[in-house]
């Protein structure tokens, strides 16, 4: 199995499933996980900004993916399946984190607090999605979704969207909230 490194994900998934518990199956599963270990670690790091903690979370993701490899039916890409696991792990970490960053929420003016709650509740709803596509530009849409759906810290949104102005994603989020508030009130 020396060709594992150049084998497409899909083939490795098939090997890992077909030969589960054997050296060939383990090697295929190991190669799949090795391929994405950097991505998983960095994604976790974006949420916690702490090497040890991100490493801990990444290990959980790897272990979970390895143990659940048999559940993966292979209809989706392995990378997106792994992304789901990593994303859920990050969500749980944020949920359990007493130090969750809410600086941007604290800084919003009181009349924006209600729209903030509303976005949080309706982020998956059709009405908010339609309003967002109507009044927000691409950067604003991404900032809103990364913050409210992906629960990403504001500083990371600044980095991931490569916003180089001083106030970063904070200003984009505030502008987007105001636009969404007007759009939803008009509707």
């Amino acid at each position, binding site marked *: *199995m020396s060709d594992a490194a150049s084998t497409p994900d899909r083939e490795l998934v098939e090997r890992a499933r077909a030969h589960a*518990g054997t*050296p*060939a199956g*383990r*090697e295929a*599963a*190991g190669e799949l*996980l*090795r391929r994405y*270990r*950097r*991505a*998983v*670690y*960095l*994604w976790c*790091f*974006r949420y916690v*900004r702490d*090497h040890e903690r*991100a*490493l*801990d979370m*990444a*290990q*959980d993701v*790897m*272990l979970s993916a*390895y*143990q659940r490899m048999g559940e993966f039916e292979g209809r*989706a*890409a*392995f*990378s*997106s*399946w792994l*992304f*789901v696991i*990593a*994303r859920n792990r990050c969500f749980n970490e944020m949920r359990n984190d007493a130090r969750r960053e809410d600086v941007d929420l604290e800084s919003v003016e009181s009349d924006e607090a209600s729209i903030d709650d509303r976005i949080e509740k309706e*982020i*998956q*709803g*059709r009405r908010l*999605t339609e309003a*967002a*596509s109507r009044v*927000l530009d*691409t950067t604003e*849409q*991404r900032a*809103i*979704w*990364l913050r409210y*759906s*992906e629960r990403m810290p504001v500083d*990371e949104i600044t*980095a*991931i969207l490569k916003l180089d102005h001083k106030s970063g994603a904070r200003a984009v989020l505030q502008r987007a909230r105001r636009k969404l508030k007007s759009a939803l009130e008009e509707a």
Partner: protein
Amino acid sequence: MNECIPVDQLGTMKQLDAEDPRRRHASSCPRCSSLLFAYEEFTRAEAVEGANPVVAEMQLGRFIEEHAGAAGPKRVTGAPRPSRGRWFDFPILRVAAVAATLIIVAVAFWQPWQSKEIVYRGEASVQFTGLRATRASDGSIDVYWDAVKGADSYRVTLLAQDLAEITRLDAGNTLSAHLDSGTSGGPAPYYWQVTALADGAEILTSDPQRSP
């Protein structure tokens, strides 16, 4: 939102024809396009300020090797063994060994004084089954596993977060072990694993299990 793309399908979007309704939706829907953007950022795995991906890759590589290496998770079966000695070089001893094996096998299967039904506790398997752990309010942990065919005793090993061994606990021939908070005497165990033994030799070791 019914037409929105499930997260685990994001990886297939680029393979779709540009006119495919799902791809068109993914590019026009704020939710899907943002999610797709997040997924692409995940796969791009660009360095993040303050992160240490080189060290992380090394440590995770070791972690993966422990769990999913071709040799299996610390499986002793198949590992290099000490020299068997030179007795096997003598043909007469070799014949005697074969004869003794045949007699043992014959006796094992011909037991007229016992019920014809042979009942094994647990399933014969190449992997541990029934691994579970519960934590009591006093912090103690009870771990359980199913019987492994051929095993006459079990050993529980407690591991730290980096998989370094903290301590071992002889569980005898029971299928559970009680780990109180003072069992390890060191750092809190992060993982546990169980090893099946036959005549003192390791025959199967489970994957490390996360402590509850």
